[in-house]
């Protein structure tokens, strides 16, 4: 009984959320839609960190760099070979996964601070490579334009028969056409932002669903075992080195997807889109989410997106100078990171659960 419950994949739930998001996207302002895209990107990127750090116990400060790998792969393939968008995203996942595999092999020999420092060096070093290879376009980077099917009908058409993903896109497309022709009064007209949101949200749902199921699989359990006690896990027959590399690879692939989506929402790929601060933000998001609670990613992502707005309001209230205003978001992100680690170290969801468990335990013991 218990087992079958654990193994349910919650597919209907994810589909339901998708439908709700789709409907919602037609009735909210453009600004919110584009913020929705950013949230979706963060959801993907943060879940990759949760998988890596929360479950396999490895810290990466280089996920910004892995996202960059994905983004560049997608953009270059799009520009140089005019590959269908969907394939560009797949390529982003693969390219970053390969990067993650290499990094993971180095990482498997390291732990804790060594790993963090190594990935930090990567995060600082890798973007500078953009200046080394002309195909990457130097400081300005390269453009990565993804428009709704009206703008580029042939591309999506070509992609359609290829995958399940393509099919979903075309279904969405048809739905949208019926909506746009007035079948659904009150819906906002089609826009690039909305299109981006759909892609990002769909990708986020698919990633979350995948990550969730990976974490509940035998792999997920072996990671948790290794995190708890490497020696014990080895004795139990788990190849901890291989399972760590695998975690790194999967996590990197997911980060690559997030990178490509981020590039899509900006329209270009350049080194400046993947600063060290991005890696830090993701870590903050993961810590805010609760490093082991996948469900928390939504909280983490929304907070990350909301911080600049909150900072704006605060700065306005205080009537502070410009240099304060522009640096307040950074201060809040970092300050929040510290405060969370200190006072809600295992995340709000986990904290609540622990408190409830404690409460119940106290109850049952007094009864006894």
């Amino acid at each position, binding site marked *: 009984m218990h087992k079958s419950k654990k193994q349910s994949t919650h597919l209907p739930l994810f589909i339901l959320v998708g439908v709700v998001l789709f409907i919602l996207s037609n009735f909210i302002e453009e600004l919110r839609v584009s913020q929705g895209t950013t949230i979706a990107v963060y959801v993907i990127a943060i879940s990759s960190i949760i998988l890596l750090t929360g479950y396999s116990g490895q810290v990466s400060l280089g996920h910004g760099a892995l996202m960059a790998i994905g983004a560049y792969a997608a953009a270059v393939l799009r520009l140089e070979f005019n590959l269908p968008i969907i394939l560009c995203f797949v390529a982003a996942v693969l390219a970053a996964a390969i990067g993650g595999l290499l990094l993971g092999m180095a990482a498997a020999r390291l732990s804790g601070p060594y790993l963090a420092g190594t990935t930090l060096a990567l995060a600082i070093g890798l973007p500078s490579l953009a200046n080394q290879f002309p195909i990457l376009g130097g400081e300005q980077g390269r453009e990565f334009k993804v428009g709704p099917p009206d703008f580029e009908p042939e591309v999506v058409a070509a992609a359609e028969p290829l995958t399940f993903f393509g099919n979903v896109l075309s279904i969405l497309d048809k739905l949208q056409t019926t909506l746009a022709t007035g079948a659904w009064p009150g819906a906002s007209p089609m826009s690039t932002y909305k299109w981006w949101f759909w892609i990002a949200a769909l990708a986020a749902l698919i990633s979350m669903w995948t990550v969730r199921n990976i974490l509940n699989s035998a792999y997920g359990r072996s990671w948790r075992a290794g995190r708890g006690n490497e020696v014990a896990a080895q004795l139990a027959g788990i190849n901890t080195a291989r399972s760590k590399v695998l975690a790194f690879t999967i996590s990197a692939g997911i980060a690559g997807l997030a990178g490509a989506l981020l590039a899509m929402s900006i329209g270009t790929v350049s080194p400046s889109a993947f600063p060290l601060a991005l890696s830090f933000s993701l870590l903050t998001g993961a810590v805010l989410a609760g490093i082991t609670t996948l469900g928390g990613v939504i909280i983490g992502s929304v907070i990350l997106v909301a911080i600049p707005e909150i900072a704006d309001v605060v700065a306005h209230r205080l009537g502070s100078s410009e240099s304060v205003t522009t640096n307040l978001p950074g201060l809040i992100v*970092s300050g929040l990171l510290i405060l969370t680690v200190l006072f809600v170290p295992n995340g709000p969801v986990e904290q609540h659960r622990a408190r409830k468990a404690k409460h119940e335990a106290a109850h049952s013991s007094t009864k006894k």
Partner: protein
Amino acid sequence: MQLLNTLLIGITAGSIYSLMAIAFVLVWRSTRVVNFAQAGMALLSTYFGYEAVSRLGSFWIALPVAMIGGAIFAALVELILMRLLVKHASSGPIAGVAPIIATLGLLGVIKSVVTMIWGGQDLRIVAPISNNGFTINGETLVFSPLKLLVLVVVMVLLIMLSILFQKTNLGLALRASAHAPEIARLSGVRVDAVRTLGWALAGAAGAVAGLFQTVNGNGNFSPDSIEFSLLLVSGFIAAVIGGLDSLLGAVLGGLFLGISISFVLMYVSSGLFFIAPFVILLIVLFVRPQGIIGVKAGRRA
């Protein structure tokens, strides 16, 4: 000539990395934390130094001011942040990553606050002596009086530090607390205070590294200077090369890194400035995972 030049430049840069590496090692030894905020502290201390230079007009006053400022700040961080961390986040899945996350957060806080106070624009610290290269046989080197000065000051500081560690009771307390805190306590060492002192020394070392990195460059610096990211990464890598637990290792690691980078830039490509340290680190990790001096258990601890 070219060779000598490359070597000297490498040694100068390396001696600065050594200082930064020493800062990492001191903190690691006293609290088993890799302090990613070290670069932020160096940055803040550099601003202290800048204030001293612009008020009092002398680099030689600015240096100790920056060192003392850096030491006090680092001590406060240990007293407040690190102790809270030990109290609140030393169990559960977060325990292994909490110090990393907290020091990264601190790095962000320092950077934001520094920018709020001093602004994001470039400021300038004028070097005390000329950075124009020496001329030998009519040929002008990149190696300059300033670089020589940096080298000499760093060496003097290193010697003072090694006397402190090897010849004084305080040094004995520092080493005992690093290797076996419980035995140190049973011998009457106030380990908590010694930890704070370890951080303070690291803060001072980082302050010198920050100031010298600035004047050894073009004298300009800002919160976003890539110089400080470089200092962070190079210092960390140098410490790792040295085994993270050894002061001598940190010095050798810094020199090794500085010289290697200098040669790569000169003879391979000058565009590899930022990726070179990473590649060198990977090579070291694969070839000698215990570092130059490090002993067996090191890296997985």
